[in-house]
């Protein structure tokens, strides 16, 4: 059975590419355009990993990380952060929230998303 991944990103075209790549690499990928819908999706499908954008309308990625950390079952889900501002997201600040890796959208290759998720699992 394929691993389930939830992609949470307000840039729907970027998210489309992530989902396309993840599916092509054998994952079962789902998308939510904001943190609130993302949390609902995580609750519903109980993913094996989450790919999370940090800067989104409404509650941002940091809020979602706090929320995930506050639930014992959800806090165990590994998170890959994907952002245009990787240098503004110090790994040491978010490691305690289950963030395994920070991907820089401005330099990444399409296949990096699947590699990061595999490493996080």
């Amino acid at each position: 059975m394929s691993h389930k991944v939830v992609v949470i990103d307000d840039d729907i075209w970027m998210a489309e590419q992530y989902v396309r790549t993840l599916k092509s690499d054998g994952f079962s990928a789902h998308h939510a355009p904001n943190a609130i819908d993302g949390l609902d999706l995580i609750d519903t499908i109980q993913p094996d990993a989450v790919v999370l954008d940090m800067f989104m309308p409404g509650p941002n990625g940091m809020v979602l990380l706090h929320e995930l950390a506050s639930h014992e079952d959800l806090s165990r889900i590994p998170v890959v952060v994907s952002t245009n501002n990787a240098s503004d997201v110090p790994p040491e600040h978010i490691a305690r929230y289950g963030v395994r890796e920070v991907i820089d959208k401005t330099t990444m290759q399409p296949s990096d998303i699947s590699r990061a998720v595999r490493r996080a699992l």
Partner: protein
Amino acid sequence: MEGAKTNRSGAMGGASMNVPLFVTAAHELKSPLALMRQLSLAIESGDCSPAEIARISHQITLTSERALRLTTDLTRTSRLEDSLFTLEPINPMSLCEEVIEEVRPLYWAKGRSIRLEKRARPLLALANKDLLRRILLNFADNALHYSAEDSPVIISAKAFGSGEHVRVGVRDYGPSLPTDLSSAHSLHSRPESSGLGVFIVNQFAQAMQSSVGTIRHRDGATFYVDLSASTQMRLL
């Protein structure tokens, strides 16, 4: 927009930004550039069907046009002090229709909709057509990003102040603006926004002696520009 002056009427004030403009502009341009790069890499990968390539190419075109609008606005902003802007009587409803036509492909491609709220009585406002168009394009772009999928963005124009003024507003249904005026972001930029769009529309509005502001709703926001009504209207 840190450092912006605010007042209780909701007018967006101040035009200075604490962060240097070029830093904010670079931050804003990262997003469309990173997206275009990913979309191009997707096409280069050879994994896309002809239909996917056509769709992704269209996304690249729309994203680049959006980024170009921003760079054009920034260039225009830097030249405002050296320019004189002619104010002329403008039918705001016609201009709103033009703006909607311009942004509709982007809205459509992102699964969103935008429409004009019709009105029976004609309006005539004093404005510089190009600057007003750019303000409304900024508002529409902002609304696209923050609106919910199933709620159309609505552009409207109305007279107020005993017919002395005209307000053109763009209403979105999305995350509410922050209530805490003392927070790092002012009332008028969204919590995760750099405030560059607010800065740009402030500059354009000031250049044509008008003002811009926001109305915070429980389920979204209206960004508006207030203009003087043309006296020609009273002669009709």
